[in-house]
């Protein structure tokens, strides 16, 4: 079921989800971990502080006691508002619970403090040449590679040396076949990966597991939740797992297996992200030639 191409030109658009700075130029050679662009996105963490309550004043009076204005940066425990009476003998303060900035001062006398922007970056993921820039967001990287699309995956982008851990495509990948030497590697199995093997792969620290089939129940138990809709890529249970044939015992397609075997020892860039419905995004294995 996997779709594979022995030698093709792979173009990957790499961009950050915001406007930021791009660090590469067209024609530049990049490695998988080269940072192409960097920026920051809004922090979803927001704290609402009832300033009026902390100061013991009416909500409409809060503004006059504020030490910070909307948009100002604040530090954790920094005083953002202060109330003094009786020549300083009575002092009440309101402090920021987090590092961030004062986003809004509400009419209700409350202040919204949002966490510091979160840095985001786009790395090349594949070695290649920059063929196009996306101003402020990233670049398009091109390389000649073997490309294999699986049918379902979990886990996001990762890179690792390809290791063939089974003799034949109809051989199951068991826990015994995984050793500490496989740490950081992308391990190829045959017809099935067992639950024990998945757990050992996570414990050892494998980058990825490429397999013909997996029992849906084992994958569910491994992830700790039902899969639900076919939108994946953010799982953090362990290695990225790419299934090339389907759920159950499925020997890996011979062509796919031999293609992977012929590239054993090379670094593969893999991504388990799957979106079945609209965009029909399937997990992919890219082996630069």
């Amino acid at each position, binding site marked *: *079921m996997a779709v594979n191409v022995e030698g093709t030109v792979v173009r990957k658009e790499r961009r950050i989800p915001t406007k930021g700075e791009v660090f590469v130029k067209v024609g530049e050679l990049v490695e998988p971990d080269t940072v192409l662009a960097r920026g920051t996105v809004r922090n*979803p963490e*927001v704290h*609402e502080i009832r300033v009026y309550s902390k100061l013991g004043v009416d909500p409409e009076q809060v503004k006059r006691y504020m030490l910070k204005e909307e948009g100002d940066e604040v530090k954790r425990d920094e005083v953002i508002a202060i109330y003094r009476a009786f020549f300083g003998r009575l002092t009440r303060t309101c402090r920021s619970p987090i590092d961030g900035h004062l986003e*809004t001062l*509400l009419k209700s006398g409350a202040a*919204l403090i949002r966490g510091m922007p979160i840095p985001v970056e786009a790395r090349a993921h594949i070695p290649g040449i920059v063929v196009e820039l996306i101003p402020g967001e990233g670049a398009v990287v091109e390389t000649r590679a073997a490309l294999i699309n699986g*049918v*379902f995956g979990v886990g996001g982008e990762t890179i690792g040396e390809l290791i063939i851990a089974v003799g034949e495509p109809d051989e199951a990948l068991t826990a015994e076949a995984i050793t500490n030497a496989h740490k950081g590697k992308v391990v190829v199995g045959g017809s099935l990966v067992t639950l024990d093997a998945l757990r050992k792969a996570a414990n050892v620290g494998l980058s990825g597991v490429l397999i013909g089939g997996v*029992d*849906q*129940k084992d994958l*569910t138990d491994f992830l700790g939740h*039902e*899969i*639900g*809709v*076919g939108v994946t890529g953010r799982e953090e249970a362990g290695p990225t797992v790419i*299934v090339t044939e*389907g*759920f*159950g015992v499925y020997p890996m397609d011979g062509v796919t297996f031999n293609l992977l075997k012929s590239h054993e020892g090379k670094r593969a860039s893999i991504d388990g992200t*799957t979106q*079945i*419905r*609209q965009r029909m995004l399937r997990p992919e294995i890219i082996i630069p030639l």
Partner: protein
Amino acid sequence: MSSEKLNKSYLIVDIDNHQTKAVLIERANGSYRLMGASEAPTTADPPDLDATIGVESAARDLGRKLGRQLWAEGGPSGAHRFLCSSSSGGLYMAVAGVIRTMSAESAERAALGAGALLMDVFSKDDPRPDYKVVDRMRSLRPDMLLLAGGTDGGAVEQVLEMAGLIDAADVRPRFGAGYKLPVVYAGNVEIRDDVSKTLGEDRYATREVENVRPVLEVENLGPTREGIYDSYMEHVIIHSPGYDRLAKWVDGRIIPTQAAIGKLIYAYAMERGLNLLAVDVGGATTDVYSVYNGVFNRSLNADIGMTYGISNVMREAGVQNIMRWIPGGMGEREARNIIGNIMALQPAELTSEETVVQRAAAREAMRLGLEQHRNIATRLKGIQIKRTIADIFQQLVEASIIDLMKTQSIIGRGRIFADDQDHSATTLMMIDAIQTEGVTEILVDRSSVMPHLGMLLDVDKEAALSILSEECLHRLGTCVAPKGMARKGETVMTLRMNVAGGATSEEILTFGELKALPLGPGEHAKIEVTPARRFDVGAGRGKRLEAEVQGGEFGIILDARGRPLVIPEVKGTLEEWTASLTPLAAPAPAA
């Protein structure tokens, strides 16, 4: 009817995510007929990015089949043209109101009734703090927003506060960052100007319609639905690739596919004077439509479906609820793998094992759909209801208006009800999933032209309803199912059937039995059902009911398995039930 109208031809196209289907309807030999249908892949998404390509392809192909020219230089020709669409996932909406169970709930019903996929519901009594509401609104990117709240002359401040939140959120539309987001305002009519001012003209294209809840006791959904259709045509669909040209080609508004289906179901129920429930089980979503005492409702279970959504059915229903519908021999692991593969591989043809699992999931998808629908189709909240002591003890004043005992007809729609499926299995699937009570006719849509007929409705209601009855809906039978429980072997009902112009027969059914009496699709019969003391078939416990019924492929289905339906833990029960239904056309076994 004028002779000009008699000669009309209608080319009607429905564009969904994958297929663009064109049909031609004409009057021939004194009645309207579906002349033909043709499909082409939808081309609204990349790489084509032009919906007209798919429409042209389907129309040209239909013309070739019929030996007619339905496409001339630059557009369709030779017929009146109508179009509905659910491409790009359909119409995504968010609604907002003042009170969740009042104005926001009415707005929710209006949006769903207009065929929308509801992304979120906001209200002033929302448990989420304002900043989270604003954050959520900002992240949604809907196609349209519906704002309601306040009776006419009622709440002002809270409606304006909600408008203020929408303004603060700067909600952007799903497609086209430069376009204004359409907002339909269906709240207190006395503050329309203030709401428009709060929202601002630069970011929102506000349309004012009549109040969806002008007084607490009245819900007025029609004008809001019309407002949604107008905004959909003017501000949403027009931005999809190719639709600007399609809009010029058609003779009316382009409306969402689900709205066209809903309009047709409503018209059908009203024409026949029925309480009706229709379940549309798609690949990714399950829609439920109902008409009870003239009130129309639609609900939608997103991501609950038979291909892409099948794995989510398992997550929502629980694997054990699916397993209970799978005959013995198949284990949980195998069923889970089949579900995973139907979702991930979406095979064009299913094996017998895959079909069994999909039907089990379909029962649960319909059950979940009905459960959700009960929460949408409710009586109006916020108004006083006079209760008697008896009501309190018997809980007679139910919130939901769905009453299966008073449902005369159920309709199944979707690929799982298609003609090439095992009809006895699909019949049983509908009875089991919905758990019909009393006397209920069971129909399925076999032609998949309900959206097209819904579009035809506004210009020729007679044609639309006549084709629906004669060419679209297939009668599986009429189910007689008394409500109640008993022990196996105890009598549940006695049924006497008098076939029009034929014989009289009598059946006595004991608890657990399922049986079909022959009565063809065009045949009518009078039945007299006398339920046992603890059972109700529509007239009250133990009370006799007389009814006139129509037959179907499986005739009159007598279901004495009790309600709620419990599957006995006896091996072979499910197979036995399916075998109880034998189609009338089936050849007699060889002697």
